[in-house]
Structure formats: structure tokens, C-alpha cells
């Protein structure tokens, strides 16, 4: 059965501290989920577990029917799961173009002849330039990331994740540090170029951003799921508004 991501009873402990506790989630192919919760609720830990950067204390993770639990980060990336990072991570010594080439690594195939290699390289170049164009970075392809603004760096992080043509993309606070205008622009870019039929989990503190992109929202608090359902309903939930949005009464 072609299924998306399935997480069952996932727990993560750092010594005596529980970062995640018995979390279960199903993500259908093409579905976009917003993952919200207060700081320290385990959102990034969840992404780290799915992408193999950390290993769960208990529970299992499946993607397209294959178990990912205990697999290394690179083997999970090769299965078509890409991610961005809350703490911006780019290859600062590589040019913007080379950062994108690094992102293309997952979907590269060995060539049997020089001409096939050249054709693949040209196709890759076109794809990279088209992606950079989507994020208004094409003019900066030969620059190193130190010449980029924070917003452009976030866009590069996103564009690089997309370069691998992922089936599932995990975005960890992609709009952090952006102005409302920039956030709106990013939401539009995501809608047009990233989320068209692709599964995604988006972590973000900007509720309007989540509401614009995700039909379903999952709420974490202290490592436990406290709500899961249609975004508009979840955002009206009394407990969610009290715990996450800080509303009284």
C-alpha cells in the first residue's frame, strides 16, 4: 500500500527528561500538517527522529511502508525525506549554486558515458537555476552564502531541500526572523512551488502562516500530543488556546 509517514508510540528521553512521550501520527501522501506547540514541546525532536538525527527510545517510524527506525540520516534522506533546520544550516564555504548541487545529491544517478553525464549535468543545472529563480536567488548563484540576507539564507535552505525532489519535506520554522510581508511571500512561494501535491510537516510559531498552508494541525505540549485535526478547529480548541496561545479562561 502506498502510504505516507506513519509514526507510532514514539518516545524520546534525554536521561530522565522526556522530550517526546508516546507520539503517534499518520501523514497521507500529499498531505500538509502544521506542527505547533510551545518552545520545548518536542517539535524539533520529532523532526530529528523522523530524519534519523536522533533515535527514539521507544516506538517506530514508517515511510511508504518501510521502517525508518534506527536508520541513519543519509539513508533516510535517500528515501526521499528532506528537511530544513530551525538553526539555519548552509554550506558557508560553497557557493549558492554548489549548495544546490549538494542538495541534488540524493536524486543523482551514475552515468554510463560522458555524454550521459554531461546531459544529466545540464539537466541538473537547469533544475537548479529554475529553483533559484523561484526563490529570487538566481542572480546570486556564484556568491557564497555570506553575501546573503537572513531571508535569502532561509530561502536557500528551502531551495536546497527541494533540489533533492523529496516526497516528504519537513520545514522547521521556515519563516523565523521574517517580516509579515516576507512571511506572506514565503507562504505564497511554498504554496506555488513546494507543497503542490507533496507531503509536508511544517513547524512554525506564526499561526497565520500555518493556517494558510496546512489543512490539518497537530499540537504538542511537553512532548505529548494535545490536539490533532483540521487547522481551523484545532486553533479554536480551548486547551490549545490556553496552553499555546496563552489565553486565559
Amino acid at each position, binding site marked *: 500500500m502506498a502510504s505516507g509517514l506513519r509514526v507510532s508510540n514514539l518516545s524520546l528521553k534525554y536521561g530522565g527528561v522526556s522530550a517526546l512521550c508516546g507520539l503517534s501520527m499518520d501523514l497521507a501522501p500529499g498531505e500538509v500538517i502544521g506542527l505547533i506547540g510551545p518552545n520545548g514541546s518536542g517539535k524539533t525532536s520529532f523532526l530529528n527522529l523522523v*530524519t*534519523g*538525527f536522533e533515535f527514539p527510545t521507544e516506538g517506530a517510524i514508517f515511510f511508504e511502508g518501510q521502517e525508518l527506525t534506527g536508520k*541513519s*540520516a*543519509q*539513508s533516510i*534522506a*535517500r528515501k526521499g525525506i*528532506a*528537511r530544513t*533546520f530551525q538553526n539555519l*544550516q*548552509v*554550506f*558557508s*564555504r*560553497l*557557493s549558492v549554486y*554548489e549548495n544546490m*548541487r*549538494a*542538495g*541534488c*545529491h*540524493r536524486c*543523482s544517478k551514475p552515468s554510463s558515458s560522458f555524454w550521459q*553525464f554531461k546531459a544529466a*549535468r545540464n539537466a541538473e543545472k537547469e533544475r537548479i537555476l529554475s529553483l533559484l529563480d523561484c526563490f529570487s536567488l538566481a542572480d546570486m548563484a*556564484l*556568491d*557564497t552564502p*555570506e553575501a546573503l540576507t537572513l531571508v535569502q539564507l532561509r530561502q536557500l535552505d528551502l531551495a*536546497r531541500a527541494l533540489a*533533492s525532489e523529496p516526497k516528504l519535506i519537513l520545514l522547521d520554522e521556515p519563516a523565523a526572523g521574517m517580516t509579515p510581508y516576507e512571511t506572506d511571500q514565503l507562504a505564497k512561494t511554498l504554496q506555488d512551488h513546494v507543497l503542490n501535491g507533496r507531503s509536508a510537516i511544517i513547524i512554525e510559531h506564526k499561526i497565520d502562516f500555518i493556517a494558510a498552508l496546512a489543512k490539518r494541525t497537530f499540537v504538542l505540549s511537553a512532548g505529548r500530543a494535545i490536539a490533532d485535526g483540521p487547522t481551523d478547529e484545532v486553533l479554536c480548541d480551548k486547551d490549545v488556546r490556553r496552553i499555546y496561545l496563552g489565553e486565559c479562561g
Partner: protein
Amino acid sequence: MDVYTITVLANIALFSFLAISAWLLLLVGEISFGQQAYFAIGAYTGGVSTAVLQLPFGIALLMAIAAGGLFAGLVAIPAMRLSGLHFSIASLAFAELVRSVLNVFQYQRWVDGYLTGPDGVNGFRDIRWIYDAGIDPGTYFLMILGCLSVVMLGVVMASYGRGMTIVRSVGENRRLAAAQGMNATRVRIITASVAGAIAALGGTLYAHMATYIEPAQFGLMIGVHSLAYGLIGGMGTVFGPLLGVLIDIGALETLRIFSGYRMIFFGGLVALVLIMRPRGILDEATVAKVQRWLRG
């Protein structure tokens, strides 16, 4: 060109192999003080192949490359579990181990009335293939240059493909590289193996030019210099380590004004460059600027 000039240029070319070898490991994020071990392995393997086993020079080159690559790969498998200072110390320990083994390694045979082959601490005499084959110093220099060009072309081709991007990605941020589907351990082992093969190629060419080699020639200082060449010349391009060799051997060692003070100037230069340009003269940013300028 007179023989002295040819010898200086040949030395620059020969040490470039070692410099490129150490530079590759710097790119993948490791500081190796031990690339001279593979230079020595190449020198002895190549020397034994032509002088003792009487094999053709081309086969000797291939055997040296294979031996250097194989040893470097085998050493890298456990060594790449280490990183940073621990890896550096391990690389140095291996180089000293190789030198100690060569100090007691004996494999001498009578060939055409000469007793030839490695004789432990007394060294390895009569690696005289270039003289037996009637190759003059100028021609041999061109052969060295040809081999160096092939190595550099290989690095340029790896940049044209995705090879160097992968190496640099792993060298800068293994976690992020893993998120792109790169197997950092495999990349580091392959890079170490290629670096070992390049050093061994330089070693065998050196042995045939020098005709006499001994374990003492492959000491720590060669390793430190080969590392410094990449640091001075720059990490942004394969021409960086060559620039480093050119500055040290081409200028400091050759020019008489530095006579007796070479190491003082060299040490000072390394310190100065590391303070002012931590990634070397031809660093990544400079190379990016040049590329932008070349593309208009």
C-alpha cells in the same frame, strides 16, 4: 634549461603531489600530519618494482598508486572514527610506524651484478631506471609534469562533476551533508584513499629521480610542510597547494637571501597567512570572485 633549474622545478612538482594529498584531507575536514607515509610507501613500492623486480616503469607507477591507495584506505577505516586532533595524532603515529618499519625492512637481490633493494636504515640505492632507460632530466621532468597534470585534471573533473562538492560538504558540516543523503564516512575513507594514492604517485616519481631513498627522508617535517602548503596556498582550488609549494620551495628554499633562515621565514609566513587569511591565499571567497569575473 640547466640541470639545477630542472631539479628545482622537478622538486616543486614532486612536492605538489604531497601538498595536493594533504589538501584533499583538509577539504574533507581532517588535518593529516602523515601523508609522507604514503609518499614513502609509493617510493619504496615503485623502487622495488623497477630496481628489484625489473618491472616496467608504468607498472611500477600503477603498483605504487595501488599500494598508497590501499594502505590509506585501510588506515582510514579505523582512523575515520576519530576526528580533529585525535585523527591528526593517529595519522602522525601511522607515518612514524611506516618509517620505523622501513628502518628494519630488507629486501635485497642481485640484479645485473648489483645488490639492490631496501636495506633498512641504510636506505635503498640504485633505483636507476631513468638512467638505464636513457631518460635525461628534462624529459623526466616532463613526465613528472604529465603525471601532475593528470592528477590536477582529475581534481578539476571532480569539481565539474559533483565529487568536490561532496568532499567539501562533508568537510564543512557532516550533519548537513548527511541530510543531503551523503555517507560522510564513506566519502572520508574514499578521499583518504585517493589522497594516499596521489602521495604514493609522487613518492615513486621522487624515488626514481633521487635514485637513493632512506627512511629518514620521510620524517615529520615533510608531513608538516605538505600540510602547510595547502594552508598557505588556499583551500578554494587545487592551485592553492601548488602556490604553497611554489612559495616554499620555489622562493624560500631556492633564493640565496633566505639561506639558513628558510624555516624561520616559512614558519612566520604560515602564521601570518593563517591570521590574515585563515583559509589561505586562494580561499573559497577569492576563487568565487575570480569565477564571477571570468564569467563576466
